[in-house]
C-alpha cells in the first residue's frame, strides 16, 4: 500500500514537471491549451468546419463551460463583455464562412476598444482553400485590419505554439482581438502533443515600450510648476490594472481629473477630484476647462474625435503630457510636449513619486462652478423632470440609489448610452461595459450576458434603447438556455433617438427614418421564459426597478420615456470643446 502511494506520487510529480507526450488531435490540443491558459468560459456556435473541435469539446465540457449563443455576433460581444468585467481574455468559437463573417463587427469593436479576445474559427480543409468550397471565406484577409493579429493553421502541430502566441498577443501591451483560423484537417490530424507552454516573448513584438526616466522627470517638472493642471484618463488605466496607482497620483497631485467613456469607474464617481466625463456629451466643466488648463495630463486615452471636438482648437494653450503604452498613439491626434511611453502601472508611480503634494482648491472650485451651472440648466431637470413623461436620466438616478453604484452597467449605443454613462454611479472599476470606439448598436444584450459570466458575483444591468435591443434580441435565447441572471432595462423613446436628435438640431427636424416601431418587448421576453414588465408611469418606476433587481433570474423592464428628449450638454460636430452647448 505504502509503496504504491509513493510511486503514485512520484508518477504524478514527474508528469507535472516533465512535458507530457501524448497523441492528440489538433482539436484536443486546442482545448488542452485553453485549459492551461485559464479559460473557463467559451462563447460559440458550431457549424460544419468547426465540428471536430465541438466533438472534442464534448469530452471537455466539465472543464470548459461553452455558452451556446444565438448568433456569432452575440458570441463575440459576449466574449467582449466577459473580458471587460473579468480582465481575462474572452474566447469565442465560430465556424467558417458566415460564422466567421458574423464575427466581423465584434472584432472591429474589440480592436478599437482594445479588448483582449481569442477567436477560433473553423475553416474548410486545407486542400480546398481557394476553391470557393462550401462555407469557405477568406477570413484572414477579411479580418486583417480589425485584429491585432491573425493566423491560419493548416497543420495540427502548429496549434500549441500558435495558441500560446494568440493569448500572449491578445492580453499583453495594448490588448486586442486575435483570430486563429484552423482548417478542418488540422482539427482532425493526430500528432504527438508535447505539452503546452504559454508564450512570453516574440522577438518582433514589443508590448511595452521602455520607460524613459528623463521624460518622467520632465513631466513631473511641468506638473509641479502648473497652476491649472488637468488630468484626463481613459481605459488604459483599467486595462493596465493601474487604478490604485492612478488614485494615488490623483490624490497626491491634487489635480482635477476627468474621464473618457471607457475610463469610467477607474476611480469612483463620487471621488472629490473626479470632475466628470469628457467628450461630445460629457460634462460642462471638463470640456470648457480643457481649453483653459495649462498642463493637460492624458493617461491611457487616445484623443478620439468625440473627446477632442475640433482638433485645431483643442487645448492649444496647454502643455500636453501623454502617457500611453502604444507609441503609435503619441502625437497621433494631439501633439504632446512630453511623451511618456510605457505601461501606466509603471509610469504612474514613478510620476507620483516626483510630483509635489498639492491641493488645487481654487482650480477645483472652477470645475465645481461649472458643475453648478450644468446642474441648474441640464442635470436637475433631467433627473427630476417636471414633465409628465419620464426621462432616461431619472431611471438611471433611481437605479443608482438601488444598486448603490455597485452594479456592472452595460450599455448599447445612442442617447441612453450617453445618459447612462453621464449619470450612472460607479464605485468600482470594470463596471462600465459599453461600445465606445465603434459605437455598435446591438452590443449591450450579448455583452451583458458575457459580463455576468465574467463577474458572476456582481449584479449586471443592461441599459438598452428600443432600437439597439432589436438588433440582437435573439440572445434572449442564450439567457433562457443558460439561466444567466441579467437585468435588462429598455429605455423606449419610440425613436432612434440620437439620430433623431441630430436631425432635430442640424437637419431642420427632417426625421428621416428614425421613427421605429417595436414589438411588445415583455411578450417577447415571456416567449423566452424571461420575466418582464412595461411601465410608463413615474409612480411605478422605483417599485419596478426594485422588483427587477430582487427578481431571482433575468428580468426585462421596459420604461417608456419622453419621445423627443435631447442629450445635453453637447459639443456639436466641428466645434471646439469650449463651444459646448447646454441647450
Amino acid at each position: 500500500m505504502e509503496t504504491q502511494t509513493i510511486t503514485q506520487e512520484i508518477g504524478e510529480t514527474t508528469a507535472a514537471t516533465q512535458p507530457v507526450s501524448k497523441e492528440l488531435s489538433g482539436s484536443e490540443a486546442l482545448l488542452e491549451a485553453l485549459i492551461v491558459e485559464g479559460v473557463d468560459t467559451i462563447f460559440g456556435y458550431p457549424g460544419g468546419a468547426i465540428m471536430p473541435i465541438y466533438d472534442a469539446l464534448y469530452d471537455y465540457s466539465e472543464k470548459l463551460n461553452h455558452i451556446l449563443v444565438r448568433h456569432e455576433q452575440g458570441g463575440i460581444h459576449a466574449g467582449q463583455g466577459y473580458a471587460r468585467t473579468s480582465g481575462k481574455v474572452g474566447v469565442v468559437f465560430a465556424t467558417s464562412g458566415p460564422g466567421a463573417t458574423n464575427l466581423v463587427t465584434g472584432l472591429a469593436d474589440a480592436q478599437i476598444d482594445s479588448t483582449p479576445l481569442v477567436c477560433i474559427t473553423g475553416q474548410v480543409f486545407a486542400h480546398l482553400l481557394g476553391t470557393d468550397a462550401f462555407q469557405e471565406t477568406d477570413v484572414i484577409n477579411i479580418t486583417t485590419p480589425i485584429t491585432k493579429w491573425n493566423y491560419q493553421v493548416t497543420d495540427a502541430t502548429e496549434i500549441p505554439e500558435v495558441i500560446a502566441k494568440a493569448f500572449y498577443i491578445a492580453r499583453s501591451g495594448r490588448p486586442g482581438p486575435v483570430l486563429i483560423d484552423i482548417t478542418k484537417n488540422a482539427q482532425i490530424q493526430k500528432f504527438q502533443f508535447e505539452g503546452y507552454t504559454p508564450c512570453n516573448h516574440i522577438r518582433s513584438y514589443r508590448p511595452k515600450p521602455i520607460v524613459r526616466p528623463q521624460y518622467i522627470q520632465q513631466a513631473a517638472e511641468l506638473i509641479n510648476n502648473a497652476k491649472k493642471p488637468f488630468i484626463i484618463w481613459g481605459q488604459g488605466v483599467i486595462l493596465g490594472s493601474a487604478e490604485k496607482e492612478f488614485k494615488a497620483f490623483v490624490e497626491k497631485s491634487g489635480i482635477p481629473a476627468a474621464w473618457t467613456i471607457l475610463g469610467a469607474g477607474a476611480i469612483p464617481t463620487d471621488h472629490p477630484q473626479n470632475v466628470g466625463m469628457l467628450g461630445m456629451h460629457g460634462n460642462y466643466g471638463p470640456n470648457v476647462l480643457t481649453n483653459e488648463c495649462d498642463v493637460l495630463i492624458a493617461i491611457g486615452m487616445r484623443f478620439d474625435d468625440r473627446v477632442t471636438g475640433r482638433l485645431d482648437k483643442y487645448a492649444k494653450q496647454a502643455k500636453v503630457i501623454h502617457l500611453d503604452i502604444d507609441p503609435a498613439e503619441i502625437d497621433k491626434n494631439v501633439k504632446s510636449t512630453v511623451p511618456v511611453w510605457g505601461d501606466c502601472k509603471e509610469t504612474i508611480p514613478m510620476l507620483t513619486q516626483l510630483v509635489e503634494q498639492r491641493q488645487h482648491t481654487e482650480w477645483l472650485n472652477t470645475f465645481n462652478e461649472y458643475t453648478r451651472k450644468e446642474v441648474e440648466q441640464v442635470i436637475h431637470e433631467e433627473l427630476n423632470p417636471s414633465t409628465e413623461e419620464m426621462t432616461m436620466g431619472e431611471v438611471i438616478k433611481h437605479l443608482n440609489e438601488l444598486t448603490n453604484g455597485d452594479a456592472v452597467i452595460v450599455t448599447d449605443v445612442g442617447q441612453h448610452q450617453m445618459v447612462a454613462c453621464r449619470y450612472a454611479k460607479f464605485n468600482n472599476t470594470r463596471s462600465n461595459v459599453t461600445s465606445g470606439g465603434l459605437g455598435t448598436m446591438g452590443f449591450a444584450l450579448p455583452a451583458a450576458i458575457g459580463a455576468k459570466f465574467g463577474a458572476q458575483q456582481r449584479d449586471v444591468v443592461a441599459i438598452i434603447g428600443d432600437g439597439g435591443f432589436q438588433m440582437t434580441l435573439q440572445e434572449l435565447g442564450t439567457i433562457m438556455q443558460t439561466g444567466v441572471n441579467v437585468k435588462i432595462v429598455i429605455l423606449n423613446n419610440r425613436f432612434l433617438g440620437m439620430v433623431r436628435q441630430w436631425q432635430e438640431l442640424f437637419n431642420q427636424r427632417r426625421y428621416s427614418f428614425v421613427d421605429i416601431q417595436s414589438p411588445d418587448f415583455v411578450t417577447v421576453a415571456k416567449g423566452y421564459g424571461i420575466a418582464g414588465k412595461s411601465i410608463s408611469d413615474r409612480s411605478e418606476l422605483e417599485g419596478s426597478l426594485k422588483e427587477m433587481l430582487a427578481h431571482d433570474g433575468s428580468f426585462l423592464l421596459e420604461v417608456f420615456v419622453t419621445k423627443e428628449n435631447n442629450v445635453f450638454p453637447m459639443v456639436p460636430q466641428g466645434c471646439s470643446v469650449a463651444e459646448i452647448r447646454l441647450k
Partner: protein
Amino acid sequence: MENKNQANNTSLSPGEGQGEAKQEFNITVYTENQIGLLNRIAIIFTRRKINIDSLNTSPSEIDSIHRFNIVITESEEVVRKLTRQIEKQVEVLKVYYHTNADVVWQELALYKVSTDVIAEKVSVERLLRENGARAVTIRKDYTVFEATGHREETDNLIKILQPYGLIEFVRSARVAIIKDSEGFNSKLREFERLEPGEEVIENEYLNQGQKVFTM
C-alpha cells in the same frame, strides 16, 4: 560594370525641412517572413488612401528576416505616423523612414529591342552604352537590355529607344540602402536575443546624421 553617379541630392524634392510639404520618402521595414504580412502592411496605406509609389520585398541578409522598401510621397508628419502604425504590427521588427537624400537607391529596367535594328544602326548601340545599358539576352529576333538607375535615367532610355522600335519595357521597384545606418546589420542581429538592448528596441528613426529620433 561601372555604375553611374551615386544618388545625388538633386533627387531631393523641394520642401525638405519645410514641415508639411510632401516629398518622396523611403520606408524600410524589417519583418518576420509570414504569409499575410504584405497585406497587413499594405492596408495601413490604403486605409488612409495613400498611394504606394513603389514596393519591394525581399529576404534581408539575415535568415528569416524580410526587408520591405516602400516609397510614398507624403509629408514627414504623415510618414512618421504611418511608420508607427507599421511598427505596431506584431511581426514587424523595425521601421525607418528616409528622404531620398538619406538613401542610395536604384531601380532596374529591362528593354526589349529588335536585334535587326541594333545590328543595322550603330547609333543605337552607342546610345545604349552611353546610358549604361547592358545586353542580357541576344536572340536572332530581339535583344534585351538592362539598365539601373533613378527613375529619370531609366525613363530617359525609353525615350531614346522609342524611335527604334521598343518592343517591351519593364521596371522594378526601388531598392534603397540607408546612408547613415552604419552597423544596422548588428542591430538587426540583436533582435534575435530575448532582451535586446534599449537602443535597438527603442522607437527610433535613423534620421540624417544617424540621430535617434526623439519627440
